[in-house]
């Protein structure tokens, strides 16, 4: 699969430096990247960008963000991105600006791209409690067996509160075998990482 840009994007990029001035184009590019990467932060609005040709400014904002996100998606380095933009015949100063912005924000763009997708929850925390049956609804005497009540979970990013992913109960023997299994994973990890 190769990177293909839609006509809207290509037109939005080509117009930079033509439909609006080069300085304004540079401002637009910088603003678009900021808004795309840190949209939750309070970024002051920049009415100057939309003053001369608002419709085109909106289109090229979309175009710039698209090019940057797609280049990150396809793992382009700056040289490859430059080739792509040169193929579409962008204004040289605009091209340089886009490549520069891509280079400086590459890591954040990559992180942003990595955060999109479907995945099982990561478990980063384990809580446990020792419990013992004293009396149940079925019999007046408890079995007296010890059980471990274990909850594996993680902390929510924004609120910081704990979220339990899985809760289970096991007796000491089952716990031993569970720990054995986990140790197996650890050994395997070490085996893989050891040089052959």
């Amino acid at each position, binding site marked *: 699969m190769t990177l293909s840009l*839609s006509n809207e994007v290509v037109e939005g990029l080509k117009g930079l430096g033509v439909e609006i001035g080069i300085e304004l184009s540079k401002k637009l590019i910088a603003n678009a990247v900021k808004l795309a990467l840190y949209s939750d932060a309070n970024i002051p609005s920049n009415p100057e960008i939309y003053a001369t040709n608002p419709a085109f400014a909106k289109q090229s904002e979309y175009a710039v963000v*698209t090019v940057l996100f797609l280049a990150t998606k396809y793992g382009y380095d700056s040289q490859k991105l430059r080739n792509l933009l040169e193929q579409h015949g962008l204004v040289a100063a605009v091209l340089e600006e886009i490549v520069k912005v891509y280079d400086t924000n590459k890591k954040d763009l990559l*992180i942003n791209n990595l955060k999109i997708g479907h995945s099982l929850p990561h478990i980063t925390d384990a809580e446990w409690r020792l419990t013992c049956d004293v009396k149940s609804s079925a019999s007046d005497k408890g079995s007296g067996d010890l059980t471990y009540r274990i909850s594996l979970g993680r902390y929510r990013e924004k609120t910081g509160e704990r979220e339990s992913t899985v809760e289970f109960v096991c007796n000491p023997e089952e716990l031993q075998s569970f720990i054995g299994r986990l140790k197996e994973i650890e050994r395997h*990890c070490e085996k893989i990482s050891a040089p052959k």
Partner: protein
Amino acid sequence: MDEVDNIIIHSLRQIGCNIEPDILSLSSFTPELLVETVSMCLHLIKPSMNVPKKLPPGMAQRFTVTASLAEACTSIGFRGDIGYQTFLYSNVTEVRRVFMFLIERLPKESEKMVLAQPLDKLTLLENELQQNIRIQLSSPWIPQYCMKSGIRKYNSSYPILSGECTPFQPCINLNIPNSLRKSNIPDKQQDYWHKRSPSVFQQTNSQTILSSIIHKNDVASNSSDFNLDPEELMKSIITKNLGAKRPSSAVDSSKKLNEINHVDTSSSSSSSSIADKTKSIQQQSSSGQLDGNTQEVLNSEIGKLKSAMDELLTSRKKILADITSIKEARTKQEEANKELRNERKIRERTCILLENPEENVKKMDMVLAATKERMNKLMEQWKSHKDPLVKTLEKSKSKNSSSFEKNRVIQNEIKVVRDKISEIVDDLKHKNNLHAQLTTELQKVDNKISRNAYTTRILEIVGNIRKQKNDIDKVLRDTRELQKEINNINGQLDRQFTVTDDLLYKTARRDEHSKKIYKLLATLHSDCSDLVTLVQETGAVLREMRDVEDQIENEKSRNIAKNLEKITSDLKEMEKDSKNLQDKIRQIENEITQG
């Protein structure tokens, strides 16, 4: 200790030290050889370290070189006593300790082999995975809430996510102005885009912007339907890509289809009537207006028509074949006609000429002369045009020739260099292969010989040590038992003595004999205790003697006499050197004062 020396010398030979075959133990190592081998080991352990490789002849330089080697050894972690004396006035046990430490620290063979392996994509990926896991295992643990949005950057630029993933849920109705295509767009929409339409960032949030943008671009560049579901869009993209992957077969099949259609259209005129009929019949039958009998009749009619159609198709094929053969015959005939016409023209002209030969000859001469004149004129004209052009051409050629030559020379050089490069690359590959082969062979050979022998030897030594340990344990147990017995007897003796002492003391007041007995008992007791202390002292003295003997042996093994001789000779040399230097200084001073 011979085994240890053998192992040390063997491994020193393996790393490429030049040790002569008649050297069998560390005691026969000369200071020069010592310095060479130690510096080789140090170089292998830490290639960045700058250590002297040979022992110089001058005494003072020798001292500085050996001192720097000793310092290098301590810098890589050697904890024993080491200094210039270890190298210059060597003692076998010290040297052995140094070599054992250095050989343990030598880089392992496996580490070297990893570098020699050829690198393809899979191994590169595996190596990368290995390295990442190693980095992750070796780095300290950080609680999740200490990582910003679950991301952790390790020392390579590889972030590892343990945070939440936002699902890929694009806003499929992203409205982006398409302002540059003004002709197709109504004014109202343009007005909306200019004044009211929200920007991309207003239509999305941080969670959806990326997925929305990727989705929008894929939709716009792959299909015209903007409101497709992501799943359907994926399907359409996949089918498109699959189709694009086998274009040759698709083109072939479409060509064939076209050909078939072409043939059909030519035959359709004849069969169209039949088709119409069948259609009408089918329509009628489908409407269900006809009963069974008429259906049978119609079926038989269809059969007949089909057979008639088949016949017509076969006759058409025959006719087409005839047409092609006739066309071929016609083209042949036309070619023959052309040839015949040309012949006829030539013959007609010759006939005209032959009618009035003399006149015609004259005319021909005239024509010839005229053409010659014209020819000359044209030649002159050609020359007048040609000369200046030729001159300019020569000029430009002379201009270009120098640069052309330069270019040619450079091109030739480039060719030569490229050939050389390819040759060198081939040579390198060949040599690399050879190197890998040889190293594997070497490993096999070395492992077979040395390891087996050494492991058996080590096992024997371990067995011996175990036996000795058992013996020592036995002796210790015996001594402990003896000690216990002695203690018991001492206790008994003391008790016995006190009892008898009491008894005799009581009776001694009354009886003279018992007084004597009491005195004798006291002297006996003191004498015995003296004897015991004497025995203990002799034991201590014996132990001391043994210690001293050991010390003497140790000192003997250090061959102090030889070393002293060496040191005194070195000292004399140093004194000589310093005297010479002082003389020189004096001479120079005299020269200066005289001058």
